[in-house]
């Protein structure tokens, strides 16, 4: 870069780069309105005839709403489990410490790095007789996301002064109430961060349900995209319409909550 690039040139470069991001999205959007032949050309021009029926075909799939429902249900349950389990554990890991809990903390930190052993997980769920249940997939995601949440929360609870605990305990407050009424409210912003990371991870994940969910009524929306493409890859117009339907809710939420989402996802990782 030169010493002083005029801002207008910089602005043009930036807009050009932004187009690189936007054009692929525009490509599937515009092609989702095209017929079977035209959509297979993947062009950027307007459709010669607008095939709104692509969207009707997508919504006529009776399982699409179920897919959204499954993804929503899983994300919500995992958010609750991860926030609850991780904050309770982080609270005592940070406050109590000691050999055992420090070891536990190290184990969670290792869990940040190492990959999950997915094939033996199938076997484990089989042995436990919970294979293919919502419970099993919620527990799988909770286990995978706990390390990050514990790590992030321990870091933040460190900044909550111990004097608060002492004062509360002197007043006769129990440890559970201390956790619930004093610690939790003070770390609520971090819990929002944890929730965002959990929701984005679970909602977009393909890896977990691909291996662990065999029953098609329990498929998440991303798993449905996979099966839909395998089924309809001869008609790209419908496939693109399906993808637009899947990513639109995410993009709308992103548009409205972008500040929280960007900060949450990056803060989450700066710590993790």
């Amino acid at each position: 870069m030169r010493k002083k690039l005029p801002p207008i040139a910089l602005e043009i470069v930036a807009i050009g780069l932004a187009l690189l991001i936007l054009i692929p999205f525009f490509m599937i959007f515009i092609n989702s309105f095209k017929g079977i032949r035209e959509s297979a050309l993947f062009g950027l021009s307007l459709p010669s005839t607008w095939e709104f029926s692509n969207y009707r075909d997508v919504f006529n799939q009776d399982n699409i709403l179920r897919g959204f429902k499954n993804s929503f249900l899983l994300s919500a349950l995992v958010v609750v489990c991860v926030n609850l389990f991780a904050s309770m554990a982080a609270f005592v890991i940070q406050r109590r410490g000691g050999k055992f809990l420090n070891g536990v903390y190290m184990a969670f930190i290792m869990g940040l790095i190492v990959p999950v052993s997915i094939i033996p997980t199938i076997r484990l769920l089989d042995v436990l007789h919970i294979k293919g249940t919502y419970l099993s997939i919620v527990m799988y995601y909770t286990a995978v996301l706990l390390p990050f949440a514990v790590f992030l929360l321990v870091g933040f609870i460190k900044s909550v002064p111990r004097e608060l605990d002492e004062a509360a305990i002197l007043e006769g407050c129990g440890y559970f109430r201390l956790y619930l009424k004093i610690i939790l409210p003070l770390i609520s912003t971090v819990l929002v961060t944890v929730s965002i990371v959990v929701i984005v991870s679970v909602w977009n994940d393909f890896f977990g349900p691909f291996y662990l969910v065999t029953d098609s009524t329990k498929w998440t929306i991303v798993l449905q995209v996979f099966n839909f493409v395998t089924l309809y890859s001869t008609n790209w117009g419908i496939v693109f319409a399906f993808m637009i339907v899947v990513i639109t809710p995410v993009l709308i939420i992103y548009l409205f909550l972008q500040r929280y989402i960007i900060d949450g996802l990056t803060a989450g990782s700066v710590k993790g």
Partner: protein
Amino acid sequence: MERNKYPLYFSFPAIIVFLLFFITPTVIGVYYSFTDWNINASTIKFIGLENYKELFNEPRLKQAFTNTLIFAAAVTVLQNVSGIALALILNEKLRLRNLLRMIFFMPYVIAPLVIGYIFRAIYHPEHGIVNKFLDMVGLDFMMQDWLNDPKFALFTIIITDIWRVAGFSMVVYLAGLQFIPKDLIESASIDGANYWTRFKHVVFPLLAPAFTVNVLLAMIGSMKVFEIVMVLTEGGPGYTTEVFYTYIRNTFSSGEMGYATAINMLLFALVTLVGVPVLMAMKKREVEM
């Protein structure tokens, strides 16, 4: 106040779930990697090192190993370079700054599987917009069958992943840039330092924490790449883009669970070998801060 009064059992739900659903699969995985566990057989027999012996004789494993490392190295470097570049651009007073920030970050919230499908269309040899664009601007000699040519397939996947994650790195670096005092840069330019010298001696050293985080995440994350490769090439042509997770998936699909578990264990070993030293470095940094 005594530390020991904090109730230990608060940590039990997290420990139990993590122990049962994360650590247990890894531990029993060691055992199953020594078995002939197959979806088509009713019994599971211990066969010792057979799976590993067979694996190490497979050129495919070497391919998956090299490709995973090439992918991880390339993504780590390119993601950071593009992240810093974008952050430096957006750190200037641009009118569309917030909008641009939002656009660059956008791919990161979309499922990688969906991104894979979008780009499969974009790289189509005849109709894809990449080749059409090259043709239009007179660079038709550069047109390639991006995903089916063994020379370009891995490179194409790397670029696609950069498209997905560059905005993420950008935001981390942008946050780092906020901490650099303006007058520090001003005084450097009064001393006659040009943009590059200023960047090298003033800006970049202060970006070190953001850099560490970005490198760490990129390295560990990219060794676990799966969806993008699966959708774009399924590890092909041949095994030229095979990575660990596509290898596991393809073995899993043919029902050879014991064998797939052995590959999973090798990935575990690789990530641990690379990740733990990096983690130690991170811990050390924490102490220094």
